[in-house]
């Protein structure tokens, strides 16, 4: 921790970006499995369960999980350290708020980030901690570690309209976060090129719209069909 503080600002940004990339890849995989909650194929439940099974039992994934948690932790911690330093860099604020052009979403990264963090904790409480046996599974559902019933747990949660609503809002904010994050991570890693950066930005826009939209489709499906 104290070592992390002593890293140069550039190193911190570099770690931030690398961790961010890891999280973005994870999000993509997560979405890939989640989408099978929606019954667009007949055996969607089986695929979902197989996916969950693979992700929770495969030893390689277990190892990856350590990195993933590390990634989360580092991304959050460094994000906060950077933000505190940034606030300290301007002890006297301007009276007139800034009107400069610039990446709009970047101005709110800490706020969208904090919202995502809060959701993450709830989300972990709902699913991951159940798997670990730290929290009780909802009534009538299995909490045996290798046979947890994430499918029904999810159905259970999404049938709650308030939860679904919050979930949707969250992913819109996540989209904002990702929109800046994607191209920003390339910049932090020093990858900015007159020829390729416009393409990266387009991919970032695509990613930040499609991925959250994918997640949003699930509660939307429940709101519409239940």
């Amino acid at each position: 921790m104290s070592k992390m503080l002593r890293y140069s600002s550039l190193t911190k940004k570099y770690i931030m970006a690398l961790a961010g990339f890891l999280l973005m890849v994870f999000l993509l995989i997560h979405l890939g499995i989640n989408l099978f909650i929606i019954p667009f194929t007949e055996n969607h439940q089986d695929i979902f369960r197989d996916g969950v099974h693979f992700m929770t039992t495969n030893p390689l994934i277990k190892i990856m999980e350590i990195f993933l948690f590390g990634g989360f932790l580092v991304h959050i911690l460094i994000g906060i350290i950077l933000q505190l330093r940034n606030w300290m860099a301007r002890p006297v604020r301007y009276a007139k708020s800034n009107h400069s052009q610039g990446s709009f979403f970047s101005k709110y990264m800490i706020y969208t980030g904090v919202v995502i963090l809060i959701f993450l904790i709830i989300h972990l409480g709902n699913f991951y901690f159940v798997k670990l046996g730290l929290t009780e599974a909802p009534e009538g559902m299995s909490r045996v570690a290798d046979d947890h019933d994430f499918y029904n747990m999810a159905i259970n949660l999404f049938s709650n309209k308030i939860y679904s609503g919050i979930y949707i809002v969250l992913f819109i904010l996540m989209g904002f976060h990702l929109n800046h994050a994607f191209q920003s991570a390339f910049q932090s890693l020093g990858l900015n090129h007159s020829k390729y950066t416009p393409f990266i930005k387009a991919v970032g826009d695509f990613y930040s719209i499609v991925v959250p939209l994918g997640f949003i489709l699930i509660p939307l499906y429940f709101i519409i069909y239940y």
Partner: protein
Amino acid sequence: MNIKLKVWRQKSAKEKGKFVKYTLENASPEMSFLEMLDALNTKLILQGDDPVAFEHDCREGICGCCSLYINGRPHGPGEKTTTCELHMRSFKEGKTIVIEPWRSRGFPVLKDLIVDRHAFDKILIAGGFISNEAGTAQDANSILIRKDKADEAFDSAVCIGCAACVAACKNASAMLFVSAKVSQFALLQQGKVEAKQRVQAMVRKMDELGFGNCTNTYACEAECPKGISVTNIARMNREFFGARIGTQKS
């Protein structure tokens, strides 16, 4: 035109400051912003008041003296413009113009709208040079440099050190300034010998002086009166990690 102003007044670094409202009658849209302030000061002096202190010198956009955070933007409205090049025709009559000094931990206010930008010199002292002593240079044409590289280096080198980038940045980060100098030398053959030490020393000094971190918001680029690009920041990121990875443990 009649002009309403709200100006930051602060007697000295130690004293507390406050906003003071002024009105200026009979200003002309053809006045430059600083000439408008000249007119205000003439009025204040003749009234027996203390004129507003602001920094300025060349009044043609190249010395980097003028600053001023005008209506929420460093150097006021207008693309690639310094305050001295700004004219009153860019403002609507009747609306109050708010003028503040640059705000950053690295730049304490000395008086009214004048801040101390000495921190920039300190960063450059740490490594913003090529160690070539007078009389030791070889013939200038003995090193050929690709025209596109030379042009790019020039684009980085046009920085006037006004610090609008820091003023605009929500994090008061000096990345654009530092990266422009790092880039200029990284792009030229002459600068490569010391490139690794240079970027590390300059980044270390920048952090030490309390500037914020870059969050790739790019307000710096939008406000830079010389149009210096954030690709310089990316280049510095590259240079820095290349240097960190590529140097021996000391």
